[in-house]
């Protein structure tokens, strides 16, 4: 693998001195009703982007039913006390706005973008959806019917089946262990459950409004006060579930899809939250392992061996913990070979020091990506929302690159030893059992499931 430490080719221009980043100025505020506000100016286009985020998602509604926060978010936009679905959609188009409402494990959100000249109208629409959604019965029925088809359909996607099984294996009975509802659960959704979820979650004390774009922050703060000021509602009481046990020992889980012409591999273990002091270190370690195009994993199983098109690794932070995943869709006959290389690269990173030049390249990459991610309104919005929702320090943007720069190759090796938990990685392979089982069994005790999630012999 000599190419990992090759120096640059002859004649390559040196890097010029780095130009300073002008960090966006943020304006913070909090309304009397508890709504937290973060604003940042970005005048690239006469538009703005925003998110009204609620600190409760599917995990917090799991005791009622999986996916409940998601379908609640879907139905939110289909009617209010003032307007029917068709009117809402036309009024959004009238002001050039885009709007979506959705929920993840830990949050629900109304995400929007529009022309600066109509900012107050768009804020009013967001306010109306957050406070006065009426959950019309026919819209709920339609959405439930669509949802039923969607949960059937997602079971035909190898990527979905792989991540569903991995989450189940890593988090078990914890809400994070269930990523989607079953057909029976969707059929059992009640409009009252959605209303309850809406009343509990969509409150100003549970909310955070982040906006980025072409506006004057003082004036925008005034508009927000005017539009959202009369809203009221308390934080929901959601007990924190017991943390899931971290599985010990490698095990293999096959999801059998007869006739699959490729095997979807995903390997994973528990990781950390965004607030964890090791977060930046793990980010850099992941980048060098499999998070970048020139990472070890990609260079090995794609550019050297041609096993796969899109290998990658990533860290997925959640409010309570998180996980690390390594994935690749590979040729059926190289399942064992691909797993061998994934583990080889994990073990190598844990066992051998990282060459200084390779380490510096990874530092540059992570640092550059961070700056790049701030160069569009939506990119900056996503960073600011991450900072706010995770209660990260105010100077998170300004100090991130310094933290990356302060790391040493020794830190990286220590981080790999701590978190790239090779001996306890759980292995999921989605594919045609007849073609992959023998190869997969080489890596541990094996359980086999069908695409519906039922164990099979």
């Amino acid at each position, binding site marked *: 693998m000599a190419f990992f430490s*090759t120096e640059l*080719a*002859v004649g*390559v*221009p040196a*890097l*010029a001195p*780095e*130009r300073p*980043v002008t960090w966006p100025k943020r304006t913070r505020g909090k309304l009397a009703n508890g709504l937290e506000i973060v604003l940042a100016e970005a*005048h*690239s*286009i*006469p*538009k703005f982007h925003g998110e009204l985020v609620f600190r409760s998602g599917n995990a917090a509604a799991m005791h009622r039913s999986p996916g409940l926060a998601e379908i609640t978010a879907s139905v939110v936009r289909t009617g209010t006390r003032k307007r029917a*679905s*068709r009117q809402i*959609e036309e009024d959004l*188009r*009238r002001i*050039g*706005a885009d709007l979506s409402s959705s929920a993840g494990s830990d949050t629900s959100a109304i995400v929007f*973008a*529009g*022309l600066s*000249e109509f900012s*107050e*109208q768009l804020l*009013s*629409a967001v306010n109306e959806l957050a406070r006065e959604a009426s959950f019309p019965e026919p819209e709920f029925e*339609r959405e439930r*019917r669509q949802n039923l*088809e969607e949960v059937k*359909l997602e079971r*035909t*996607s*190898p990527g979905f089946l792989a991540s569903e099984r991995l989450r189940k294996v890593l988090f078990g009975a914890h809400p994070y262990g269930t990523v989607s509802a079953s057909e029976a659960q969707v059929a059992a959704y009640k409009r009252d459950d959605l209303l309850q979820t809406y009343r509990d979650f969509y409150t100003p004390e549970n909310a955070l409004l982040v906006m980025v774009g*072409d506006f004057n922050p003082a004036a925008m703060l005034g508009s927000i006060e005017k539009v959202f000021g009369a809203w009221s509602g308390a934080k929901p009481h959601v007990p924190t579930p017991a943390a899931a046990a971290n599985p010990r020992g490698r095990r293999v889980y096959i999801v059998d*899809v007869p006739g699959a*012409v490729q095997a979807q591999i995903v390997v994973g273990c528990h990781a950390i939250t965004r607030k964890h002091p090791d977060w930046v270190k793990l980010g850099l370690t992941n980048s060098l392992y499999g998070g970048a*195009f020139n990472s070890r994993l990609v*260079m090995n199983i*794609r*550019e050297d061996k*041609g*096993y796969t*098109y899109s290998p990658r690794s990533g860290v997925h932070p959640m409010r309570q913990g998180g996980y690390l995943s390594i994935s690749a*869709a590979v*040729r059926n006959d190289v399942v064992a070979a691909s797993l061998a290389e994934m583990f080889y690269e994990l073990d190598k990173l844990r066992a051998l020091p990282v060459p200084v030049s390779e380490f510096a*390249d990874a530092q*540059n*990459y992570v640092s550059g*990506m961070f*700056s*790049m991610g*701030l160069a*569009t309104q*939506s*990119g900056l919005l*996503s960073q600011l929302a991450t900072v706010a929702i995770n209660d990260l320090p105010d100077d998170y943007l300004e100090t991130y690159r310094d933290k990356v720069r302060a790391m040493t190759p020794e830190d990286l090796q220590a981080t790999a030893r701590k978190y790239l938990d090779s001996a306890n990685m759980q292995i999921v392979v989605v594919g045609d059992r007849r073609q992959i089982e023998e190869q997969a069994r080489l890596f541990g005790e094996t359980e086999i499931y069908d695409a519906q999630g039922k164990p099979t012999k």
Partner: protein
Amino acid sequence: MNVTVSEPKHLKVAIASTTLANGLQVVIAPDAAAPVVTVGIYYKIGFRLEPQGRSGFAHLFEHMMFQGSANAPKMQHIKLINSSGGVLNGSTSYDVTNYYEAVPSNALERVLWLEADRMRALKVDDENLKNQRDVVKEEVRVNVMNQPYGGFPWLDMPPVAFRNWANAHNFYGDFADLDAANLIDVQDFFKTYYLPNNAVLLILGDVKAEEGVALAKKYFADIPAGAPPPFADPSEPEQKEERRGHVDEKFGTLPAIAIGYVMPSRRTKDWYAMALLDQALHGGRAGRVYRDLVLEKQVAVEADGGIDDLFGYNGPTQLTTRIMHKPEISADATVAAFDEVIREIQENGVSEDELQQLKVKWRSDYYATLEGGRGGHMPKYGLMHLLACFTLFDREPELVNTILDGFLAVTREGIQAAAKKYLRSSQRAIVFRTPVAIAAPPANGAREAA
């Protein structure tokens, strides 16, 4: 909604452009707001012009452009960009292939050096070709063969809709054709199409106009021009009746239908009208197709559509609607419900109120395109793409600042006339992608659409 309108702001993109002596067109769009620069090179070659017997070659070739050039061997391309704190990629489409990087602006010269090196001479061997052939096959498997609705409808539609091989073949490539491709093909393709006089270089972001032009000259001026590349005629024989085709869906549970109508040429009066007609039909949940089929008649679970790369086509292309309908609704009933949407707009056009909504949304979307990236880390990708298309096809990058006026000048009559002229059954093709699991009719018989 109570709407008070403040004066709309107009966006003007600062642009400088020039053509080097070797024919390379250069466009600079300076903007120092962030210390980041986006570089793109577009070559005027895509799927359409790839050689017969070599389906998928334009895309396979794109992969080869990352495999090594005269002074930067394999792995150096990727390493050079990533280790500078940047990202890179490329993509192949019908009429262009692009290569692009976004980097902190202190790495600009390094990026230009790399792009010039691989425009000057590609240096690849059999092992590289075998490696990327394997990678491309896994790309096809992950995106098409092992994916529900993989390739729908972009690979399903061309053989049904078109008769000229240039437009009708498998753009990702038959595996036999990929296997047959050899190094001679690679170098021939490179020598024929990858010429400075068949390309545009774009530098956007943290660079001054004169600095950008000077750097373009420094790195690219000595690359020799070549003979103007041949242009295989992609025109189609006249279509006289509706065309239909059927494709098996191996994994998915819902029947899917794609309906495509042939578009007029770019930048004609009808083209502007078709773009707003597309917005009327496919503009999200307010669009007539989603509104009628999913929200109101509820025959479909999903419906969307659009024009494949409105600004970047140079041969026959379509306005396409994609529908996934409920299994208990028949395909005929679904098409009938769709036809009702088309008939309604042909007979009654759009109201003045709807037209105004369409224009505001169009303007808003256009600004988003100019600013928007690709993924989270490729700022100004949209602006780069428009500037490239306006330069390669129109030799007029300034269109980026004036093209919006054409869309905002479209009238109600223009939209209705375009609907009557282009949304005709005799000018369309329909692909039915039917799940093998439900290909047999259900026992209780198919219900008709409400």
